[in-house]
């Protein structure tokens, strides 16, 4: 644990530009400490994995970073600015955008509309109640560009709820990317996906990370090894280890706690 606490600030000083960082993050649920003393630094241009057994507190960390839950204590800063008390929609507008463990799409809207909803806000189109919905046609080219990037252009007119599971996740990522976030938080983006989809999504995430910071929860260690520059291991709400894949995978405690339980 001491090693983990030392690594995060150390890395902040020497590594690539840190965009989002957390210090001493803690969250209690009626006496139960779900997340305790978590330090994180998410850097621009990197993919950061958050791994750990089920119930370790990964989703809770996501909820804290995006302010869907208020931290019991600790601070969160975005580009040096304290956002610990900022409401969730504002955090999203500042550029920290998340996906959800259970895929979050608007099932009865078309695939195209799902993306357009995300594109709508910046131009102030969200509040225009007096205009026809055809005002959104101006966003279609950009939305189609995003859909083409993720290979969903052919499905643009289908209700999003009709897509296969894997394509729903891809749509969710495309919608998130529509906001051009500074920090992209992906909660198990590939869970339950077939091999082919995993490859597609990996490529999308890699491309997205070239110009932003990515934090992702992922159980598939092959994906983590292949994709992620930095790994933080969480266990019972606390950081067990942090470092690159080689460091973390050779850590004895990680082997026992995580690899041991998960891979038999």
């Amino acid at each position, binding site marked *: 644990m001491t090693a983990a606490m030392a690594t995060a600030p150390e890395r902040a000083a020497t590594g690539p530009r840190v965009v989002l960082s957390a210090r001493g993050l803690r969250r209690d649920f009626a006496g139960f400490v779900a997340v305790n003393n978590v330090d994180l630094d998410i850097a621009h241009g990197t993919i950061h994995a958050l791994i750990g057994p089920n119930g370790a507190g990964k989703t809770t960390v996501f909820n804290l970073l995006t302010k869907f839950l208020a931290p019991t204590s600790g601070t969160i800063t975005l580009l040096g600015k304290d956002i610990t008390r900022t409401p969730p929609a504002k955090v*999203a507008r500042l550029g920290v955008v998340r996906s959800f463990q259970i895929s979050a799409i608007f099932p009865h809207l078309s695939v195209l509309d799902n993306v357009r909803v995300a594109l709508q806000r910046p131009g102030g189109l969200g509040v225009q*109640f007096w205009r026809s919905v055809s005002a959104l046609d101006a966003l279609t080219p950009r939305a189609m560009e995003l859909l083409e990037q993720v290979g969903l252009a052919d499905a643009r007119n289908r209700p999003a709820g009709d897509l296969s599971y894997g394509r729903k996740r891809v749509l969710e990522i495309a919608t998130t990317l529509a906001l051009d976030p500074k920090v992209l938080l992906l909660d198990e983006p590939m869970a339950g996906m077939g091999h082919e989809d995993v490859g597609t999504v990996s490529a999308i995430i890699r491309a997205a990370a070239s110009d932003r910071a990515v934090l992702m929860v992922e159980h598939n260690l092959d994906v983590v090894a292949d994709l992620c520059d930095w790994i933080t291991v969480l266990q019972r709400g606390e950081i067990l280890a942090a470092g690159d894949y080689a460091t973390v995978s050779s850590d004895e405690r990680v082997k026992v706690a995580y690899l041991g339980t998960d891979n038999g």
Partner: protein
Amino acid sequence: MTDLTLSRESAGAAGPLQWALLALAIAALLAAPFVVYPIFLMKILCFALFACAFNLLLGYTGLLSFGHATFFGGAAYFAAHAVKVWHWPPEAGILLGVAGAAVLGLVMGFFAIRRQGIYFAMITLALAQMFYFFCVQAPFTHGEDGIQGVPRGELLGFISLHEPLNMYYFVVAVFLIGVFAVWRIVNSPFGMILRSIRENEGRAVSLGYSVANYKLAAFVMSAALAGLAGALKAIVFQFATLTDVTWQMSGEVILMTLLGGIGTMIGPIVGATLVVALQNTLATSGFPVTIATGLIFMACVLVFRRGIVGEILARLPERHSKQ
């Protein structure tokens, strides 16, 4: 299924068939007073507009308000008072009613919007009851008597609304404007956000939408349009009474909307027409109205949850998939 119907409806692509039906409906409205009593038609139109305004909130935003009588009845009092005591022209009285209802909506919405589901409904009910007791006590409402003998006055200073047909066509115009406003809001960029909030609130937040503000805006718009209906009713019937601010009135508009079909444009209009017609029939038969409405309510919940229009649309899958 209802929602898919909705998504096509909301795509804003009204085909030639829809336009033809709309033209037919308007023609029927214009001809109707020569066949049916105008006063009965006007009552239907006022309640239909009320139900459409309510549906903006329930059907398109997913919020169940149990306090909409406040806006309907409150606006009726404001309009009646302005026209009778201050001698305002009817259109100004109606606008005051709309503005007053919007302010009441802002207050009620402010307190209710952060709560979910049944808690939201309970807060709106509690605040509506407070407004009811305010109306019982406040001198300008004249308590149990209400504001009686409101002159219909002259529209724009020269069209006498005491002339039944003038009054009727004015009501038709206001009704059409009100329904158009609901349709426009639902099929606007803003309406798109309301739909996404209803479909997945957390996702809307994560896309940066301050959901509470959107809900509050929808609440105020719904309140203002409900106020338009209430103020119009006060001018038509020339009185404003406590009946329109009771919780029963809030329940009635829920019933109309559910019966016709939530989340459809014409459902609330159909629902309001049936309920008003039923009340008129029962009023002469002696059968208790409350029992009848209770039975309808149960039928809605148990048998046809989509409402009449919703069920019909759901049974026309072919027509809709072609569009």
